[in-house]
């Protein structure tokens, strides 16, 4: 009840503030970023607590808050206000990637490497193939594909298939953090989604270039290859350099690591895209280097970042929810739902095949595929690329992609949370209570 009253008060305050100022006035901008940040952070937290009481993941609460408060539902957060949180989302991606990379110590994942590689290859390539075929077969019922000739149709469907095979390290990290999960299953899932992201980025670049060429647009395979090489290897190299810098910092300086890392994330979030690097790969690479060069410092860094990371995660997922087009989802719901089911079924089958072939432990054979189900940041970015780069066909296709992503973002974390609980990994991570924040009165540690 208290949470509901607080939510109502928050909505009232936001609405009252907005009613005093004309839309689009000069004062817009700087202050609305903070206002949106504060509102999203507090309201998403309260909604997640309400959902947690009925056993749903908090992450779903964050996303749902964004959906409800966003421009396509209650419009408490208009599109312009949501866009002001881009930097926070960028920093969140960097922090998530750094933490994900920091969890991937080669020493710890080496025994799991075969399973991770099999899950990645089967999951991405198999799901992309299955979804391409499905889209090709369903094309007569998809108006935006009706004008394409056979070759163009195939490559266009292949591009959408690859985009739909994208997974989400952010959601996986968010759930691992929320459930305090630690263990073989968690490490395998995290390793798989990270590797899958790298594979999808490379694959999407090539297939989209072929689709553009088949549609009659200008496209050079050489240019595309160089572009992807720069994005992948440039990001890995840049990230490795930042990782070394961070390792030195953690070993030699130590003080103020939170501030230094946050600043580093801000810099990467702001500058990576203009120089055509992928912030996620940059920080993943940085995290990998730190994890493998200074393992001891990494665990301290991850613990230190927890305080900084939680608010950023909440705002990131809520913002992602606010960008989901509910109006679009209504129009494509039946086919989107069909694709969600097909994607889920193919990932289940492919996951079972992959894990059986490597004789993975029972919990991974049973639940490993669930980690590949959620979608968020990368899938949304690819949908945006399709929308911007392929005219009318792109607009229709991105609506369908966004519909599928919306369902996967809202529903699939629930399944992954169940898997984490069933695998026994949930709650296994021993949390060191932050000694700098005193406990409530009368409570002892």
């Amino acid at each position, binding site marked *: 009840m208290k949470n509901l009253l607080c939510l109502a008060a928050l909505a009232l305050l936001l609405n009252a503030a907005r009613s005093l100022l004309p839309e689009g006035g000069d004062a817009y901008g700087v202050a609305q*970023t903070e206002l949106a940040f504060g509102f999203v952070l507090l309201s998403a937290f309260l909604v997640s607590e309400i959902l947690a009481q009925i056993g749903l993941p908090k992450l779903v609460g964050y996303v749902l808050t964004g959906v409800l408060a966003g421009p396509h539902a209650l419009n408490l957060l208009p599109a312009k206000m949501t866009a002001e949180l881009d930097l926070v989302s960028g920093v969140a991606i960097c922090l998530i990637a750094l933490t994900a990379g920091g969890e991937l110590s080669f020493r710890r994942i080496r025994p799991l490497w075969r399973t991770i590689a099999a899950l990645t290859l089967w999951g991405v390539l198999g799901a992309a193939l299955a979804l391409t075929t499905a889209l090709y077969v369903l094309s007569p019922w998809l108006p935006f594909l009706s004008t394409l000739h056979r070759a163009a149709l195939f490559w266009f469907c292949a591009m959408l298939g690859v985009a739909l095979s994208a997974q989400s390290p952010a959601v996986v990290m968010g759930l691992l953090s929320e459930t305090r999960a630690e263990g073989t299953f968690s490490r395998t899932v995290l390793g798989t989604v990270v590797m899958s992201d790298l594979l999808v980025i490379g694959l999407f670049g090539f297939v989209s270039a072929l689709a553009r060429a088949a549609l009659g647009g200008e496209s050079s395979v050489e240019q595309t290859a160089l572009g992807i090489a720069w994005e992948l290897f440039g990001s890995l190299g840049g990230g490795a350099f930042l990782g070394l810098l961070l390792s030195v910092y953690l070993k030699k300086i130590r003080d103020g690591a939170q501030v230094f890392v946050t600043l580093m994330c801000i810099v990467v979030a702001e500058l990576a895209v203009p120089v055509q690097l992928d912030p996620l790969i940059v920080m993943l690479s940085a995290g990998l280097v730190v994890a493998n060069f200074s393992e001891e410092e990494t665990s301290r860094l991850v613990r230190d970042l927890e305080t900084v990371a939680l608010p950023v995660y909440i705002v990131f997922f809520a913002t992602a929810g606010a960008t989901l087009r509910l109006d679009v989802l209504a129009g494509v719901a039946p086919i989107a739902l069909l694709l969600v089911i097909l994607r889920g079924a193919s990932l289940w089958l492919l996951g079972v095949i992959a894990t059986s072939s490597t004789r993975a432990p029972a919990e991974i054979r049973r639940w490993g595929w669930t980690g590949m189900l959620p979608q968020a940041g990368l899938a949304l970015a690819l949908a945006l690329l399709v929308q911007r780069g392929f005219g009318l066909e792109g607009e229709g296709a991105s609506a369908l992609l966004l519909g599928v992503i919306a369902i996967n973002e809202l529903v699939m974390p629930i399944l992954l949370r169940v898997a984490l609980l069933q695998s026994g990994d949930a709650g296994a991570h021993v949390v060191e209570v932050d000694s700098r*924040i*005193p406990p409530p009165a009368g409570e002892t540690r």
Partner: protein
Amino acid sequence: MLPVPRWVVAVLVAAVGCASPHAAVTHVETGSAVPFGILAKTVLGLVLLMGLFWLGSHPRVRQFQEWLGIRQAITAGFAFVGLGLIASHPSIGILSGKVFYDLAPLIHFALGWLGMIIGFQFDVRVLDRLPRGTALEIALYTLAPFVVVGVVGAAVMLAYGRPWTDATFVRDAIVLATAGAIFASGTGDRPRPRDRFAGGDSDERHRLDQLDEIAAVAGLAVLGSFFRPQWVGFQWALSGSIWLLITLGVGVFVGLLAYAILTGGRRGAEFAALTLGSVALASGVAGYLMLPPLVVCFIAGAMLVNLPGDHRRRLWSVLTRFERPLYYLFLTLAGALWDVTDWRGWLLVPALVLSRAGGYLFADRLAPEIVGEGMSMRPAWFAAPVSVVSIAIVISAQTIYRGPAVPWIVTAVLGSAIVVELMSHRRARR
């Protein structure tokens, strides 16, 4: 750590390190413009930042700072102002354009955080224990420098050719006077949470500092309500009194909301996240309505400290824990906003230092008659350091107001902060 993974990573780093520039150069040669200047500057900026952190935490540098007397947050943080100045210089261009716009909310946020901290010290139970006559002393030591700085500042601005009939003339003089009227405590450090909320008393002098800061916040509240920015078109035309009530109302509302959210046994990262959200909300609403975030958050903080519950120790701990890093970020952005090229601001520095000292001297002379002997716990009139709140007030004004004198005031306050602290240190060493 096993040798093989380290070797693998080293090879990976070397290979990628070699491959990336090659790929990048090829990419540029094929026509896609990758702005390498930005990359180079970014790397350089990060290395410089790291160097700054290293220097800041090095024991010898700390000893040197102690020897120099750089203990105040202001001067200790001036390296960050310099960093902001350099990063925003057109020839460097890191902290400019879109990057600065994206980071600008941090200024509001840091002001709000500082306001929350000051408000959190407004515990009426502690104030009750102050000796008789304290209020009179505070009034004397605040009003005397306020009036003298205001008059001298106005005279200098008149000499610069600012017409006194201009509506912003009085406003600018009040901003300068309010910033000049506050002084900082000796150490620049706030009392530890244990001292603050475990029944122990912080020292008397710190309480006087708090009251001084509170008086300044009250001044800023009046300023923000009665001198509204002219460049924003609001839906409703409201009088200054109504704006003052709105300021109070928003602060109280956010304070109560934060209280409801923060109480109930929350802890750790969740508690810190909710504190962050509460300050962001308060300063966001304030900034949105062109009210000073410092004031709105001050009221919210005062509400939070005076309401019962188990939240106070933890909240104080979170607030003070992030105070210093946020303050440094704030100073970096303030440095990026600072226009050091206008000589008129620099000429205001001696005027501010001398008039401020004159105001304190005047108060010193009057104190025995008005307050009584032995009451004053102030530092010597010429050695009263400029408070962090003074900088916050001028930066607050800079975010709300526009006009030719605003950059002068910023220069005057930042410049005098250094000058006064050096003077204070010379005296202390004697």
